[in-house]
């Protein structure tokens, strides 16, 4: 029996949205994809989850924007870029994933995935450093990482002193540098970004 012809179509607007993002290299081989599957065979997420970079590229090229943005699959990527290393056509699903996640957020689907990491932005603005999200308080990770680790973290100021380093972990920038960084980040709209997180937290709490 002959299968019905496919009705899937290329979505010019969606491709433009992806390819015009500054993070996408100008010579990306997205349209050159031959569906060989090298990306999926190298992908750690494909070993344990339903995510397949080959399938994602197929879905992008056949205009299935809504399906992609709603799907859990784009959140399984490890950001390891093995797909980029292995692709024989110069395509880079790993970078496209980050743009798709942003689009998913704009479409209202991806917020829950990023809300836990709001503190990263606050730390960046106020200290110039990106503290590991969720690793404080130490107690929250003691079960998983062990009592030894918790002890190391509590003793860190002492250890840093022994190493002859700044005793404020991970390190402390001079006040002038912190002020300059804060000013630069505010001009780059970091407060507006943080505000988006706060609004979304409130909205989710209300529901």
């Amino acid at each position, binding site marked *: 029996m002959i299968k019905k012809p496919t009705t899937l179509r290329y979505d010019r607007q969606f491709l433009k949205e992806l390819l015009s993002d*500054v*993070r996408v*290299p100008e010579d990306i081989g997205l349209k050159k994809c031959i569906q060989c599957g090298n990306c999926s065979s*190298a992908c*750690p*997420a494909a*070993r*344990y*989850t339903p995510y397949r970079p080959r399938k994602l590229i197929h879905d992008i090229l056949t205009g299935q924007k809504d399906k992609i943005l709603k799907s859990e699959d784009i959140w*399984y990527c*490890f*950001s*390891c870029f093995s797909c*980029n*290393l292995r692709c024989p056509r110069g395509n880079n699903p*790993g970078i496209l994933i*980050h743009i798709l*996640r942003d689009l998913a957020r704009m479409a209202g689907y*991806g917020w829950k*995935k*990023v809300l*836990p*990491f*709001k503190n*990263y*932005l606050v730390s*960046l603005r106020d200290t*110039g*450093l*990106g503290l*590991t999200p*969720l*690793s404080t308080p130490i107690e929250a990770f003691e079960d*998983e*990482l062990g009592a030894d*680790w918790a002890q*190391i973290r509590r003793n*860190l100021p002492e*250890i*840093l002193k*022994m*190493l*002859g*380093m*700044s005793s404020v*972990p*991970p*390190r402390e*920038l*001079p006040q002038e*540098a912190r002020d*300059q*960084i804060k*000013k*630069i*980040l505010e*001009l*780059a709209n*970091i407060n507006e*970004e943080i505000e988006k997180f706060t609004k979304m937290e409130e909205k989710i709490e209300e529901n």
Partner: protein
Amino acid sequence: MNKKIPHNGFYLFKSCLIGLEYPGAENSTRFVFDKLGIDYYDDPRQSCCTGMGMNLDVVTPLITSVLAARNFTLANQANHPYFATICSTCYGVNKEACEWTNKDPKLFTQVKNILSRAGLDVKRDYLNAEHVFHAAEVFYQWKDAIKDHVVIDFGGIRIATHHGCHFYKIFPEYVVGDPEDVQVLDDLVRVIGAESISWYSEKNYCCGSGFRHRWISRDLSRAAAYDKLISVKREGAEILINMCPMCAFQFDRYDALLEKLFATKLGIIHLNIAQLLALSMGADPYKVVGVQTHSVKVEPLLKKLKII
């Protein structure tokens, strides 16, 4: 590729996560640079590269670009234009910021205007992807000189390496040698007289951190870490050398948990390349190399090498 790596003029690009978890790796980098007489600038004003935030999808390209431009401006104004990062993600992110601002004049103008309002004058040629190096590449460039400083005999110690995905998979074209079988760390392992495992089945596999997975999809993160480490274990490696604190955290901090979850014995010692080189050059394991912050105890190795 046959890459041109300078010998001097480095801006030591410190990592937030190294400072928090493995400060000895940062300190060992200074120790090795000092020992070799490498000219570098250790700038307390340097900020985060935003790598963690980028991969957690919470920072915009503009935020990453303005901070990269600020760091590059500080480095260039101090006449130390070459970044020597100690984290594979810092390496990848700084290169990316250069590529973005170079190809998009509108983004560069926006960045330039923002920086000028904070009193900084960024020039277009400051943001040069070819000026971003990993400290491991600097060591590699100096490997003949390293040989002369080795005082500890690592003969017979079997060592595997993990280069960190963001060092060779984002920009394979910038990698010394074959990006599908990177030997930068392995060559350094051989230089100090240890036995390099060179290739193992999961050499190109991710550490499993996956950034968000570490915190949110923990089962996924641990499964990948186990696949990686068991393949290292099968080769009989005593040490796995890393050059990225995310990978180090994943391997070292989760060792006990992975042993329990998968009912297996791991116990591989995890060292940053700078820590390995510093130890081989006679650095104090506690005051310089900072082995006291490791979860898998390094002492059995130190005893075997007669360091303690």
